């Protein structure tokens, strides 16, 4: 087993465990903290894939800005504890059965189907560098970039409309 693979498996284990912790935790605060661990682990994965820019963005935007916002909202609303839910009684067994079926299906496919993914490609050394991403973003993907900017503006307008009452 190569060193790369061992490192990946370690990261994957942490990512999966933190995701499970996020779901299982009763406190919204702990859930948010688990999510930060998850984001950070994924950021390290990006680093191992030679994508330093994406890794830094993952840390600063997701683990940083967004999660700080989450934590503030949780604390300001005083919603640390998620009230216990009372789902339908048949919900849990049904979800369990369906989940196991899906997992079994995925395992069978992964181990029986050859060439599930296209061949690995050799990438240039500056793949994933800020320069390469910038060139892609402002050239090939200019339209999606501009569409995203409008999308964010619309979301802002919407948020203001909903929270700020009309002055008479």
């Amino acid at each position, binding site marked *: 087993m190569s060193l790369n693979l061992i490192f990946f498996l370690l990261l994957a284990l942490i990512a999966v465990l933190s995701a499970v912790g996020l779901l299982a935790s009763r406190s919204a605060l702990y859930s948010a903290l688990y999510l930060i661990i998850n984001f950070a682990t994924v950021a390290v994965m990006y680093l191992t894939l030679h994508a330093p820019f994406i890794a830094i963005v993952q840390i600063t935007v997701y683990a940083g800005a967004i999660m700080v916002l989450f934590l503030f909202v949780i604390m300001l609303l005083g919603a640390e504890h998620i009230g216990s839910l009372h789902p339908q009684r048949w919900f849990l067994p049904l979800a369990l059965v369906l989940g196991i079926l899906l997992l079994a299906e995925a395992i069978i496919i992964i181990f029986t189907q050859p060439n599930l993914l*296209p061949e690995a*490609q050799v990438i240039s050394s500056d793949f994933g560098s800020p320069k390469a991403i910038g060139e892609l973003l402002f*050239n090939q993907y200019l*339209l999606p970039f501009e569409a995203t900017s409008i*999308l964010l503006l619309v979301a802002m*307008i919407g948020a203001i409309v909903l929270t700020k*009452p*009309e002055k008479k």
Partner: protein
Amino acid sequence: MSGYGIEDLVYILPIVFLLVWALVLVLVEAFTKRPDVTMLLAAFGLLAAVTLSVIQFGTEATAFKEMLTVDGYAVFVYMLVLASGLLSLGLAYDYNRRMGWARGEYYILMLFSIAGAMLMASAANLIVVFLALELLSIPLYVMAAFVPNDASSEEAGLKYFLLGAFAGGFVLYGVALIYGATGATNLMDVVAAALGTNSPVMLLTGAALILVGLGFKVALVPFHMWTPDVYQGAPTPVTAYMAVVAKAGGFAALFRVFIAAFPSVSADLTPVIATLVVLTLVVGNVAALAQKNIKRMLAYSSISHAGFLMMAFVTYGSALYADAVTSLLFYLLAFTVTSFGSWAVVIALEKAEGKGLDFEDYAGLGKKYPMLSAAMLVFLLSFAGVPPTLGFAGKFFLFRTVLEAGYAWLAIVGVIMSLVSAFYYLRVVRFMYFEQGDPEVRSEPVLNLVTAITVVGTIFLFLFSGPLLAWASEAVLALI
């Protein structure tokens, strides 16, 4: 790698114009705070965009490095959603003032959302499909929750937002899997790469996830749970708008993506699609039977119409798909005209705080307001698919295509479900004409205009079904 030219902007001028116009209106509204002015300017912007689309007819090009395709199919959907936007403005204008929450932002958000629907019809790249879907949806979430201090409107907005975000996640996950399987997000590259693979499991999973996400937007069973609650809780003009435009955008993108990118997995997906169609038809129509509130009834009715529209989809891998898309576009047109008409009548009868929305409130309408109830009768007959209405022509062409494709059993299910639907539509007719009551109707010029236009459209366009179908089929030719 060459850069961009002015022709990129010219090809998608209707969308670019609408977006710039909406941005200008944001400033206009911020400084003038005159909702009436904003509404008039929004209507002007929509009319200008219609004109630009008319000029665009006949163009066949890709723009912005193959991110967007402009063809007859896209332009047809442009015109449809722009016309829907104009009708929605007509529905909202008086209603918003009557209910006392007229705000200019409403019309601006609607313009953004229409631009999103137009982008969906043009999207030739899965990333653009996702972004356009969000641009269509995010204004809708806000518009659904637009009534201040109203619990049911807030509930509608929140429910739509949470489930819609979830559905957006499905689409995005599907796009990621397709990129993993083929290394491409461009529809043409996806189909080229898909032909070379011998193991389409990833591609199939990705396509299925996109089907789920877009199926949510167009309210297919079993992804329809949100529809009755959101349609009932949202302000009625918003309901009318999203019933049509979200469906038009969703189906436009669904058809283009599946026909262009996933013909290789059609054998696996067609049974799934046929099952969705049957489920949607049965659940939509049977649940509509039990409704007493007109908004909920029309919500379930719109679910059942999503089932009819989806029927065209079972042929997508066969040689007949061009016919199928033609009948889809025609049915979409019929549904648009009829749906806006019926919502106009609902708005005319609606009182503040959700009153005037039960079937009982329609009792005696035939005697007191013969014109309005005759209009409603036309719309309900068109929904049920009775001649001489546009709805009949829509169903006729659709069933014919499905029969030609060899899905006789599906056409039979469709006919049976049309009969079931006639039952609940005629219940409203029974209340209007055979029950005693004293309904009160707001007579507002703009609203009456919308009702008149749609009722004339429902009957008059039926007489021109042939040319219209020819137009739709011309629009589709370019898709191939």
